[in-house]
């Protein structure tokens, strides 16, 4: 919260979410400053995804606020995120199977179009310019992730690692200021995870990153700040070194205080 920088991009404060009698989150706070990578970790069912959903406007908290660049978001919905320049990846790849890789990324770039409904319906105005602009931006994003060759292929015909890059390109093509990454390492091999870690560090030069991840080596390697959730509460936060040394974290993950390696 105030520990990172005085002027965070995203600040969630006092978030409490109950589903019926179950308290999924209880008075949770979190802040992401520009140019930093914040990790959100915790055992299964700790409330990480619920917090992500609160930030993305999928779940509305009973208490607490989410502020974006100092402005409190009261009624935002998932489709407003792109306009706020927040990108989110989903746990699965969630590529559009009926669209080519290029078209997938062009959908991600939709925010950058200038034309309105009139142009989309009639083919007049910005229609043609928008098509060209989105196509160029999407192609550049695919090139940035080294998968430009796959532009005309349907997602199902591509290897998993390439699909993952296309999904990242789709999230990043519209130049977000905050990237929410939901378990990006799942299903990746060791080498790919190392490359992903480097990529995430690279993103942080341009934007803030909030990372939910189970893969501890990756989290420890890329994060500037880590927030640990357990049973809907923040049990620890600090630098990777502080978290690794924290007894409560070790207990939450392993159920025994004397162990200190990751899960």
């Amino acid at each position, binding site marked *: 919260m105030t520990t990172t920088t005085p002027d965070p991009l995203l600040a969630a404060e006092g978030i409490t979410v109950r589903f019926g009698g179950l308290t999924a989150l209880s008075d949770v706070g979190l802040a992401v400053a520009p140019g930093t990578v914040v990790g959100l970790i915790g055992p299964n069912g700790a409330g990480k995804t619920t917090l992500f959903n609160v930030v*993305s406007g999928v779940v509305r908290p009973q208490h607490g606020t989410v502020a974006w660049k100092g402005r409190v978001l009261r009624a935002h*919905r*998932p*489709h*407003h*995120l*792109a*306009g706020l320049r927040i*990108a*989110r990846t*989903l746990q699965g790849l*969630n*590529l*559009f*199977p*009926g*669209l080519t890789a290029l*078209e997938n990324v*062009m*959908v*991600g770039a*939709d*925010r950058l*179009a200038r*034309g309105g*409904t009139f142009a*989309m*319906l*009639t*083919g*007049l105005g910005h*229609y*043609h310019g*928008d*098509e060209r602009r*989105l196509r160029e931006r999407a192609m550049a994003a695919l090139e940035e992730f080294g998968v430009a060759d796959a532009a005309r292929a349907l997602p199902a015909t591509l290897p998993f690692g390439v699909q993952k890059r296309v999904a990242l390109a*789709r999230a990043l093509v*519209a130049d977000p200021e905050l990237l929410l990454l939901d378990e990006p390492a799942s299903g990746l091999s060791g080498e790919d995870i190392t490359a992903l870690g480097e990529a995430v560090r690279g993103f942080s030069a341009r934007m803030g990153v909030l990372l939910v991840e189970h893969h501890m080596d990756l989290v420890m390697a890329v994060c500037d700040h880590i927030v640990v959730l357990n049973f809907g509460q923040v049990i620890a936060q600090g630098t990777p070194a502080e978290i690794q040394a924290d007894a409560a974290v070790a207990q939450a993950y392993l159920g025994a205080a004397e162990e200190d390696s990751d899960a």
Partner: protein
Amino acid sequence: MVSLRNHESTAPAPRARRGGGPGAAGRWRALPALVRFPLAALAAFTAVLALTSLTGPAEDLRIGSVGYYMLAIAGLQLLIGYSGQVSLGHGAFMFIGAYTMALLVLHQPAFPLWLNMLLTVVVSCAAGVLVGAATARLHGPYLAGATLALAVGLPALTVRFPELLGGSNGLAFSVRGAPPALAGVVTTSQWQAAAVWLTALVGLVVLATVNAGRLGRRMRALRDDESAAALAGIPVGRTKVTAFLISAGSGGLAGACQAYLLGTATPSSFTVALSLSLLAALVLGGLGSMWGAFWGAVALVYVELWGQELAHSLSLGTNVANNLPIVFFGVLLILVILIWPQGLHGMFSRLAGLVRRGR
């Protein structure tokens, strides 16, 4: 615009295009939608004019019917194939279009045809927004059920308001044919078929433009994955309603063309069977392509005709003869889908591919 493009390439482009060389298709695709689709529509319109100059009044009527069915099916294609919303009640929008047209002709005889068509589009689009907004939260079979109810219920309005809508006999009216200056050149039926095709092709150009652009991509994205589309900033609900609006506008305009062509609007033309036929014709023609709408419309008009002729030549009993066209259509649908899941369009493009490879 065409010549501008050609200047960019070093090859003698016009000749290469005529020769159908490998670059011609690519160059055609590179044209902006705003040029490409109207040019294609112009070519189709010329073909229809040439065709109707050879045929008699009965055939002109059938050619006109292909035109408006094509428009209705293409609108349904945008809704089902692109935005992924299944409507079993598209006949209801044709009903709205036909009755709007009939009422305008009867009560505002001074209005020109184009204005009537325009007003029909406005009315049916408004109906589409209402239905789309009401059903935006429904998916799959629930949406299909809701639209089916519309197709069942709406034509009953005619019986409820017999003074205005003419009861079960419907509304009959006469339309103006060819302008006096062209009286000796074109017949009324030729003029009507041409007017219907011109309207349908203008509608088709709009649909093709939408499909090829941002809105079409938005629709396909939300059809494939709603949450991922929302995270890309696509307003899911609004896009779904827009798809309904466009599709309803096409259906309404098709209904108006039908009323104009036949000079009547009767509730018995807009039964649930019509809605289901449109859907069947869409699947038969091929989901995912404008050509599918054309083949579907051709099948809808001519398979029924051939069925009738067959029944006539076999001198069957009326019970059998009346149902033979439907059986005919059903068998064709099953056969085509079994052999070519992409429909008639898939069949033709497969055959074209074979021919090209064989050369």
